[in-house]
C-alpha cells in the first residue's frame, strides 16, 4: 500500500520538513533585518551538513536533486528578466563599463588562486566568484532603497547584464576546461560549446516571439509543465553538450517574452524560491564548517579588496555617463554584493573536486559580501546626502513664517 510509509520515507519527510521550516524561520529573521536570505540559507546548510551540528543523511539526495533544479530555475528566471533587445542595447551602450568590471573584479580572484598555488582552472573559477555581483540581492536593494529611478541605476543594471552575458560564455568555457584531455580536445570542446551558446543566443533573440507564442497557454497548470519541461530539456541537452545546464536555462529565459514571459514569471517564481533555497542549503551542506576558520583570513582580505574594486567599477562607470560623486558612490556600493552566481560557480568547483579550499573559501567570501554588500549600500545613502549638500549651493528653502507676519 502506498500510504504505509516505510521508515525511510518517514525520515525523509521529517528531515525535509525540518529543513524547510528552518529555512523559513531564517528567511523571517533575514527579512526583519533587511538582509538577503542567501547567506542564512548557506549557514543552515553548514549546520546540517558534513561535520555540522546534525548531519542529514536521508534527505541529502533529495536536496541534491532539488539543488540542481534550483540552479536551472535561478538562471531561467534571470533570463526572463531580460529581453534580447535589452541585452544587445546594454552591451552596445555600456561595453566599456562591462570591460572595466571584468578587469577589476576577475583579476583579484584569479591572482589569489595563482598565488595560493592552485590549479589554473581553480584560479579561473575563483576569478569568476569574485567577478560576478548578485543580481538578485542588488535588484532587491535597489527596490528597497527606492533607487530604481536614480540616474546611476541604468549603469548598475547594464553592468549586471554584461556580467550575466559573460556567464553565458564563461560557464561552458569552464565546463570545457574541466573535462580535461589534451589541448586540442579542450580547444574543440570549448569552441563547440561557445558556438552553441552564441547560436542559441542569436536564435533566442531572433525567434523569441515565435517560441513564446508556441509555449504560451492560458492554463497555469499546463504552462508550468510546459515551461519547466522546456527549461529542463534544454538545460539537460546543454549539459550533455558540455555547455552547462544553467546556461541552457538562461537562454530559454531570454527567448521567452510577451505574455509567456509574464505568466512564466508568475508561476515559476515560487518554485524558484523553493528550489533556490535548497540550492544554497545544499552548497552549505557540502562544506565542513571546520574547514572555514583556516580560510577565513584570506576570505576577509579577498572580500575587502573586491569590495573596493567593485566600488571603483561603479564609480568609474557612473562618472563616464556624467553622474555626480554621490551617485558614483551609490553605484559602486550597490554593486558590492556577491551571492547566487558566485555560489553557482563555486558549486562547479566543489562538484569537480579540483581544489579542497575553494568551497570553504567561496562560502566564507559570499557570506561576508552577501551581508556586507547591502549593509555598505545602506550606510552610503545618508553619506551621499551630506555629500551632495556640501557640494552645491543650498537652494533657498521656504521657511515657515509665523502666522500674521508678512514676508517682504
Amino acid at each position, binding site marked *: 500500500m502506498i500510504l504505509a510509509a516505510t521508515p525511510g520515507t518517514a525520515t525523509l519527510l521529517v528531515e525535509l520538513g525540518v529543513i524547510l521550516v528552518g529555512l523559513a524561520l531564517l528567511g523571517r529573521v533575514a527579512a526583519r533585518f533587511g538582509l538577503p536570505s542567501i547567506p542564512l540559507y548557506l549557514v543552515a546548510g553548514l549546520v546540517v551538513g558534513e561535520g555540522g551540528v546534525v548531519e542529514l543523511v536521508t534527505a541529502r539526495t533529495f536536496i541534491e536533486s532539488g539543488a540542481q533544479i534550483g540552479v536551472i530555475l535561478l538562471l531561467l528566471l534571470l533570463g526572463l528578466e531580460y529581453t534580447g533587445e535589452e541585452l544587445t542595447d546594454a552591451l552596445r551602450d555600456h561595453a566599456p563599463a562591462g570591460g572595466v568590471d571584468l578587469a577589476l573584479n576577475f583579476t583579484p580572484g584569479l591572482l589569489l588562486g595563482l598565488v595560493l598555488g592552485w590549479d589554473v582552472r581553480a584560479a579561473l573559477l575563483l576569478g569568476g566568484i569574485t567577478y560576478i555581483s548578485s543580481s538578485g540581492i542588488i535588484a532587491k536593494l535597489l527596490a528597497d532603497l527606492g533607487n530604481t*529611478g*536614480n*540616474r546611476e541605476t*541604468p549603469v548598475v*543594471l547594464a553592468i549586471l547584464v554584461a556580467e550575466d552575458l559573460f556567464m553565458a560564455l564563461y560557464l561552458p568555457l569552464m565546463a570545457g576546461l574541466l573535462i580535461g584531455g589534451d589541448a586540442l580536445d579542450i580547444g574543440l570542446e570549448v569552441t563547440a560549446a561557445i558556438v552553441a551558446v552564441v547560436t542559441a543566443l542569436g536564435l533566442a533573440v531572433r525567434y523569441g516571439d515565435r517560441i513564446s507564442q508556441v509555449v504560451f497557454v492560458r492554463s497555469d497548470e499546463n504552462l508550468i509543465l510546459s515551461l519547466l519541461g522546456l527549461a529542463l530539456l534544454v538545460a539537460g541537452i546543454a549539459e550533455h553538450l558540455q555547455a552547462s545546464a544553467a546556461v541552457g536555462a538562461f537562454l530559454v529565459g531570454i527567448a521567452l517574452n510577451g505574455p509567456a514571459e509574464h505568466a512564466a514569471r508568475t508561476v515559476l517564481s515560487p518554485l524558484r524560491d523553493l528550489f533556490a533555497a535548497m540550492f544554497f542549503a545544499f552548497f552549505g551542506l557540502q562544506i565542513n564548517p571546520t574547514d572555514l576558520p583556516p580560510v577565513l583570513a584570506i576570505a576577509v582580505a579577498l572580500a575587502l579588496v573586491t569590495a573596493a574594486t567593485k566600488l571603483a567599477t561603479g564609480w568609474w562607470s557612473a562618472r563616464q555617463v556624467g553622474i555626480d560623486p554621490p551617485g558614483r558612490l551609490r553605484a559602486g556600493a550597490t554593486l558590492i554584493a556577491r551571492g547566487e552566481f558566485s555560489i553557482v560557480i563555486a558549486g562547479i568547483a566543489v562538484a569537480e573536486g579540483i581544489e579542497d579550499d575553494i568551497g570553504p573559501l567561496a562560502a566564507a567570501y559570499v557570506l561576508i559580501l552577501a551581508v556586507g554588500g547591502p549593509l555598505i549600500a545602506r550606510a552610503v545613502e545618508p553619506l551621499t546626502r551630506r555629500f551632495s*549638500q556640501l557640494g552645491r549651493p543650498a537652494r533657498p528653502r521656504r521657511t515657515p513664517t509665523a502666522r500674521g507676519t508678512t514676508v517682504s
Partner: protein
Amino acid sequence: MTEINETKLPGVGTLHDFESQSGGRIGVIAHHADRREVVIYDSADPDRVSEGVTLTAEEARTLADLLGGTSVTKRLDDLRQEISGLAIDWLPISSNSPYVGKTIGETELRTRTGVSVVALVRGDQPLPAPGPDDELRAGDTAVVVGTAEGIDAATELLTARAR
C-alpha cells in the same frame, strides 16, 4: 513640447523623466510587471530619487485622468514625426470638410500636394492602405505622409470649411 528622456532599465522596465519649468525633475518607471512608479528627484542631488510612489495599473490610470488624461489623445493628433524630410500626421476630417463623401481619388491630394493617405482611422477601426476609391467620411482621421510643407497644404485642403 516638453523634452522627455527615455531610459531602458534592463530587467526592470522603462524610465521616462523630464524637468518641469519650475525646475523640479519628475519621472515615471513603467515596470515590466504592470506597475508604475512615479518618482521625484532630489533638488540637492539631481541623480537621486527623493520620493517614489508605486501605483497599480488602475491607480496609474486614475492619476492620468486627474492630470488630464485626454491630453494624451490630443497629443497624438498633434504628433508629427519628421524622418529626414518625411513627415507623418493625423488629419481629422470634420463634418464641414469639403471632401466629406468624396473619394480619396477625388481630392487629388497627391497631385496637388504630393501627400499620400496611408491609412484611415474610422472609429476604432484602422483602414490601412486605402485606395483612390475609398470614401472620406466625417469623423475619419486620415494618416498622411509627405513633406512638412505638403502636409500643411493637405491640412488646409482637407479641413478647409466648405465655401
